């Protein structure tokens, strides 16, 4: 390619459509729509299926005709494709169409998998409440990352912080409360939170005081937590004989949980689950509506400017990272004392990393990160649900391993930029030295 040709390929006429992230996404939706109309809609079993709203027997529900729904969703995808490649005036709707298309992947997955299984219906309310519950550690973990990274400290060690606090908390419960006393359960949850703060302060000292590469420090914390909890499990928890215990009992929100049919499924959950909402809301409130929150954010964006204004950057960073650690400790308690009463090696199972992906998805904002956590919680809940439904495509049963890997694949796709570039705090990862 000569220099001239190269130059002319860079300056394109307004009619020419650029192949950017948006148009490629539109194109992919269009192809999916064509494939669904041509391949799936005619071939699929057209017996009526049901979205149930409660548990059997005789659940209330909504019946639907799978091919009709698939064609309706396909038409939306085709419209998205057409809008993506249409002349300028109509293209302003393309973004909205893409968002709608992305959202409609959820009903599409449900309709397709129900139609492909032998089950006549499935409880969708339960599926959504499961998604919210499974999003708990992810939302808490993402909030941890938010506090840390907004103050300028990259935190890869969320996974290890959660694992260590899950182990230490459950160990306390097993040792002191024989894994059954409610009073000691609450005390142990508190210990979990403290342990999270302790691990985070290790990360803080390493990366703030000693200037260790923050990713190295985080990875070291992850490996350290793996070793520590393995030791605690086999040497302390196992020896107490209380390897499984009573976990927190569910709390229903007054009034809301007495709504007929769906109330008890949607508004009943464990105490840490409810605390998660408080933590996310509180994080938003403190970080974006208080002077201290503004200071935290300024330390993450431009610590030198912050220092000029008289802010003690190092102190703010310590406070923020340790506050994040306390939140991760709560997430750890969720694993070993709410989700299941007991501790297993590596029970966090990459949740800390998925939480980081949720943070990136949410572009370093509390509610965005919460949305990301919901997405990943949903993909995990959906994976489990589809495993139970037993989905079969032309005589080939889709293996359970496929559904188990669903949350990781979704994370990968999201991080690889289905949502566009997301830019973190400017000073994250860089050590700060006080001016003398």
């Amino acid at each position, binding site marked *: 390619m000569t220099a001239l040709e190269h130059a002319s390929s860079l300056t394109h006429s307004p009619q020419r459509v650029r192949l950017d992230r948006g148009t490629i996404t539109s194109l992919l939706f269009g192809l999916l729509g064509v494939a669904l109309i041509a391949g799936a809609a005619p071939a699929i079993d057209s017996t009526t299926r049901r979205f149930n709203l409660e548990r059997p027997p005789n659940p209330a529900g909504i019946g639907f005709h799978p091919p009709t729904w698939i064609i309706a969703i396909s038409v939306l995808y085709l419209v998205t494709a057409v809008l993506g490649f249409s002349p300028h005036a109509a293209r302003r709707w393309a973004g909205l169409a893409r968002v709608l298309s992305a959202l409609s992947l959820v009903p599409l997955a449900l309709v397709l998998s129900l139609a492909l299984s032998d089950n006549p219906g499935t409880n969708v309310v339960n599926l959504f409440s499961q998604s919210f519950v499974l999003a708990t550690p992810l939302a808490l973990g993402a909030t941890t990352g938010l506090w840390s990274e907004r103050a300028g400290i990259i935190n890869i060690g969320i996974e290890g912080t959660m694992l260590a606090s899950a182990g230490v908390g459950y160990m306390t419960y097993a040792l002191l409360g024989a894994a059954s006393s409610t009073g000691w359960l609450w005390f142990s949850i508190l210990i979990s939170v403290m342990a999270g703060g302790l691990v985070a302060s290790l990360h803080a000292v390493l990366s703030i005081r000693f200037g*260790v*590469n923050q990713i190295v420090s985080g990875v070291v914390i992850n490996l*350290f937590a793996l070793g520590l909890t393995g030791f605690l499990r086999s*040497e302390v928890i196992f020896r107490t004989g209380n390897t499984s215990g009573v976990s927190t009992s569910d709390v229903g929100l007054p009034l809301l949980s007495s709504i007929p049919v769906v109330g008890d499924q949607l508004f009943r959950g464990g105490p840490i689950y409810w605390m998660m909402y408080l933590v996310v809301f509180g994080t938003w409130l403190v970080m974006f509506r208080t002077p201290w929150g503004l200071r935290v954010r300024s330390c993450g964006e431009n610590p030198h400017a912050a220092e000029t204004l008289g802010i003690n950057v190092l102190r703010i960073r310590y406070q923020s990272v340790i506050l994040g650690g306390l939140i991760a400790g709560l997430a750890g308690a969720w694993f070993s004392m709410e989700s299941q009463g007991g501790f297993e090696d590596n029970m966090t199972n*990459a949740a800390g990393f998925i939480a980081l992906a949720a943070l990136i998805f949410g572009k370093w904002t509390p509610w965005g990160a919460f949305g990301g956590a919901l997405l990943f919680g949903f993909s995990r809940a959906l994976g489990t649900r589809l495993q139970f439904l037993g989905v079969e495509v032309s005589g080939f049963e889709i*293996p359970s391993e496929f559904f188990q890997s669903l949350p990781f694949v979704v994370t*990968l796709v999201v991080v*690889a*930029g289905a949502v566009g570039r997301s830019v973190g705090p400017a000073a994250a990862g*860089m050590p700060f030295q006080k001016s003398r």
Partner: protein
Amino acid sequence: MSRPGDADSSITRASGHLHRFLTEAWRLQPLYVSLYAILLSLLIGGVLISLIGVNPLTAYWALLRGMVGDGERLAGSLARSVPFIGSALALALPFRAGLFNIGAEGQLLAGGLTAAYVGALSWMSDLPGGIAIPLIIIAGTMGGAVWGGIPGVLRTKTGAHEVISTIMLNSVVLFAARWMVGSRDPVVLRDTESTVPRTDPISDTAVLPELVDSQPVLHTGLFALLGLCFVVAFMLNRTNFGFEIATVGLNPHAAHYSGMNVNRVIVLAMAAAGACAGLAAASEISGTNGHFQPGTFFLMGFDGIAIALLARTKPVAVIAAALLWGSMLSGAPLMQQEADMSIDVVRIIQALVLLFVAADAVVRYLFRVHEQGQSPFRATSVEGAA
């Protein structure tokens, strides 16, 4: 284009003996820190052991005899350490380019699967060992390289951070391997005659020759991985590509400005890392297991991270670190048997070692080791270099 070394040469000459002394001291420095870190961890580990009610000296003596007690145990320790060399290089190599590859676990699985698949192909048994063995090794290396290259491509094309994408890819390949090896309907790679999920045994001609019949078997894969360390060290320190990797690691903007293709360097460095892990996996499949089971490589990639950090990401030092790490794991069962405590004690000692090596400033402060030269784990303040 002149290299920075040329510009430095006048300063080198001027500072003479002092500079030479410092250079040599700098080369030794990392070893001091690692040694003190090990010492400190053994001390803290000893306190923990005595808290459980066991005499730490008894435990450590049993551990030591388990590691190097007699010829067979020594060979077993060596054999246990061999694959760690590859998984540690998988971190150490891209680390020089500022990339953090946590994906050795998945790259081992990908390499192991490809090696086992190629090794069990029916025509492999017709080939002489001189061709079949290189084939299986190359297959595993390529499998690892492809799986390692993916996060590199994602990083350059979409900006996805390699720490997250490699972790996710680890899980994806683990589930894929479990399915391929475990599924009976349809049969993908499963050995249908076996009761446990595993692949068909590889052809006899593709088995690496055995050196010592220890537990696990010490095989000639040892030489392949030892050689790999020197190849990687040579590549990083003495080739143009190594210079590009180092430049990208120090300052990608400067690398780009001086005409280097930063994206190409990132993808190749990640693929080369995957290749190191893949080679280790292939050597294990060929020399030790003879078939593929998903559990074989459990934690091997994560131990690799620890080993690479202990070796302060220097490829040749990886050999010593891997030997220490592997032989501790290999000696732990004797300690468990004689001192009646869990193998996890070794894990916690290892975790402590790692902590002190990464936080080298703590060790330097405690033991008054003076800092000369930059620690590889010290965060650089160059924007975008982290």
